[in-house]
């Protein structure tokens, strides 16, 4: 057995959607249809399977792999802007930003990381309506701090979180 290189997890930022499922609210990845489980880590899987029609596709492998784009992504706070809608609306899915713990196999890139295992560490949720307040309560079932933020746009939530961090 090989000893890991580091003991402490990487702490980075990412964006999710908080999806109102009716009975509960869950975190969902923005790019892929991946729901983040409660109380246990999300484990990365590569969805690139060998395709008999396209012979150049990659074979199945453990995620994240060098030379592939698979893995659980996270970056610095300033890298989140392109992944948030300009203006937020009270809907079944609300953009959320927060810190995430990354561990296992980590590929470090210039602006962020790809990891094999992850779990949210803290969440910042825009307060848009009564539904948002319920979603915030339900997101607390992840067992991590969930902070409401009075923001209706990407610029506002990023500014508000930056201000909180600087305080």
């Amino acid at each position, binding site marked *: 057995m090989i000893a890991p290189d580091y003991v402490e997890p990487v702490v980075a930022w990412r964006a999710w959607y908080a999806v109102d499922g009716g009975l509960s609210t869950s975190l969902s990845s923005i790019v892929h249809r991946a729901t983040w489980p409660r109380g246990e880590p999300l484990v990365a899987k590569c969805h690139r399977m060998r395709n008999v029609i396209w012979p150049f596709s990659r074979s199945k492998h453990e995620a994240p792999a060098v030379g592939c784009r698979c893995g659980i992504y*996270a970056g610095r706070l300033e890298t989140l802007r392109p992944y948030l809608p300009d203006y937020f609306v009270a809907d079944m899915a609300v953009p959320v930003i927060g810190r995430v*713990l990354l561990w*296992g196999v980590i590929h470090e890139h210039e602006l962020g990381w790809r990891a094999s295992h992850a779990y949210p560490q803290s969440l910042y949720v825009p307060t848009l309506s009564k539904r948002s307040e319920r979603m915030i309560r339900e997101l607390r079932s992840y067992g991590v701090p969930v902070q409401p933020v009075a923001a209706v746009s990407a610029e506002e939530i990023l500014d508000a979180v930056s201000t909180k961090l600087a305080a």
Partner: protein
Amino acid sequence: MEIGKHKRTYTVEPVRDPIPAGSPEAPKTEPQPRQEPAPVPVQPHRAA
């Protein structure tokens, strides 16, 4: 998510409990009541 060029790869020790202590979802660590050993039934002496 655009994270730029790959720099290096490393491994990080698994996080056993990612939920912070004190959270309502954190596992309870209160001491459990001591279990008394169950009484052993005494077999009545059977007369020969």
